[in-house]
């Protein structure tokens, strides 16, 4: 009865487009109230450790990468920043032991590694900072079998068991170091052939110019951890807003400047296995 000849896929296409549009619209519904709550209060609460250089330094003139980052984020979101300093943060590998509560923190910064264990507790937004075990030696490589290697475990929660196992396997003798100062003096005196510590700790040690080289331990055994900002699981809208703010900061080159300022942009040599 009709002169028109609709294309055979027309109806199907219309239906699929209709449903796709419906779902797309629904996907923009906010799944929770985390962002609107913060906006109502006008405050973004951030928990940081007292010191975790170079992410948090405790020095007001140069407060650290993460400290400046969260301040910039709060600025982008139009929220006032409140910083709560919790000594427990970063003291331990497991963020469950940091005594965090929702009342104190919306955001956790300075010492949150983007690991599976962390993500079991918090959701994370990785930042430019990266950490892992690094070696320091005069040659810039691991010393030969039988040498003594100093280890300064630090507090970032890198896998110490894997490290000691690996050292044993390499036929190296490990010596536990207590502080960056001890690491420096032992290296310089030659008491140890090399030192192994966490990347950020290594960055703070003021070694003699060009006398020692930094290198990553083999990545296949010791993964590098990206540092991250931590948010509570389920705070989806807040997380999206923070990620969005980070994008804005990257576009305006604020991030690049911060990375350069805290020495997070330099490359460290990798070792072959």
């Amino acid at each position, binding site marked *: 009865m009709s002169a028109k000849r609709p294309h055979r896929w027309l109806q199907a296409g219309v239906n699929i487009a209709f449903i796709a549009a419906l779902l797309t619209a629904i996907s923009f519904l906010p799944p929770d109230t985390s962002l609107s709550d913060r906006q109502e209060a006008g405050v973004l609460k951030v928990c940081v450790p007292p010191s975790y250089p170079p992410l948090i330094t405790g020095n007001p003139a140069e407060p650290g990468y993460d400290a400046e980052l969260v301040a910039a984020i709060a600025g982008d979101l139009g929220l006032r920043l409140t910083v709560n300093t919790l000594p427990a943060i970063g003291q331990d590998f497991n963020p469950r032991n940091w005594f*965090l509560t929702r009342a104190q923190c919306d955001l956790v910064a300075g010492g949150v590694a983007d690991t599976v264990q962390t993500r*079991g507790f918090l959701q994370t937004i990785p930042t430019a900072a990266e950490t892992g075990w690094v070696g320091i030696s005069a040659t810039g490589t691991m010393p030969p079998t039988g040498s003594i290697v100093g280890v300064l475990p630090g507090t970032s929660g890198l896998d110490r068991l894997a490290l000691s196992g690996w050292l044993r396997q390499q036929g190296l003798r490990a010596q536990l170091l207590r502080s960056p100062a001890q690491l420096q003096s032992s290296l310089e005196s030659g008491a140890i052939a090399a030192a192994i510590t966490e990347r950020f700790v290594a960055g703070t040690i003021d070694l003699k110019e060009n006398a020692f080289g930094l290198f990553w331990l083999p990545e296949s055994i010791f993964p590098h951890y990206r540092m991250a900002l931590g948010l509570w699981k*389920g705070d989806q809208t807040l997380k999206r807003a923070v990620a969005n703010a980070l994008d804005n900061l990257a576009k305006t080159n604020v991030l690049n400047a911060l990375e350069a300022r805290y020495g997070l942009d330099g490359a460290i040599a990798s070792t072959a296995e």
Partner: protein
Amino acid sequence: MSSPIILMRGVYGVWLREIMRATRDRGQMIGGVSRPLIWLLILGVGLNPYFRGEVYGEVRYVIPYTYLQFLFPAVIVLNIMYTSIQFAVSVIWDREFGFLREVLVSPMPRALILLGKVLGGSTVAMIHGGLVLILARFADVTLSLEQMAMALGLMFVLAFGLTCFGVVLAARVRSFEGFGVFSNTIILPLYFTSSSVFPLDPALTRTQTATAYPEWLVFLVQINPITYAVDALRGVVIGFNQFPPSYGPAVICTMALVFFIMALIDFGRS
């Protein structure tokens, strides 16, 4: 006109008809999509706060994802399960209303008729599953094109196996009404014991599993093939596997093969 081309035309024809029938009916499509909405929106959002994990001292939720992210791949699987198994209604329909005879008197081999039909059903199920991917943003899941392609591939093979399973069921059920009841009593238990709405993590928390769940439930989850399908899709979509990553695809492919052969035997008899 070589023979393979003729046969492929036939398979294409049967496939095309299934797609046409399914996509033309907007009600059916909305019905297919309302399930993920209910699951993700209501259940996912509703339970999300209870899986936040900030209550210290007690391990509430050890999976490194939010509940919405965890649920998301399972909702895709649920959608595929429904669409695939309900596809059997189309088989019963053809049988009851005589359309089947139109195909059976054609020179097409029965195996290819079945293949075309099952491919059509799986494509429709894959579309229904794929539509859920649109909600990825809502669940805070980011997908690369590669991940999407892999997910769609897995979804298709899964849909193929389940569609064949539906055909096998259809051969044993005579009426539409009976099939509705039957399929629900099969789909829902399979879904709930597939580690879809709660995690069962043998690698990380053997002891936790044992303290959290009774043996029989753990057993049910472990023998349920859908568990591995959900796991495979989780591996692709959110990068989380509870079981060795090769299990999922292996189970999905085995299902597709076994059920197709069973469907072939049943269909040849009709």
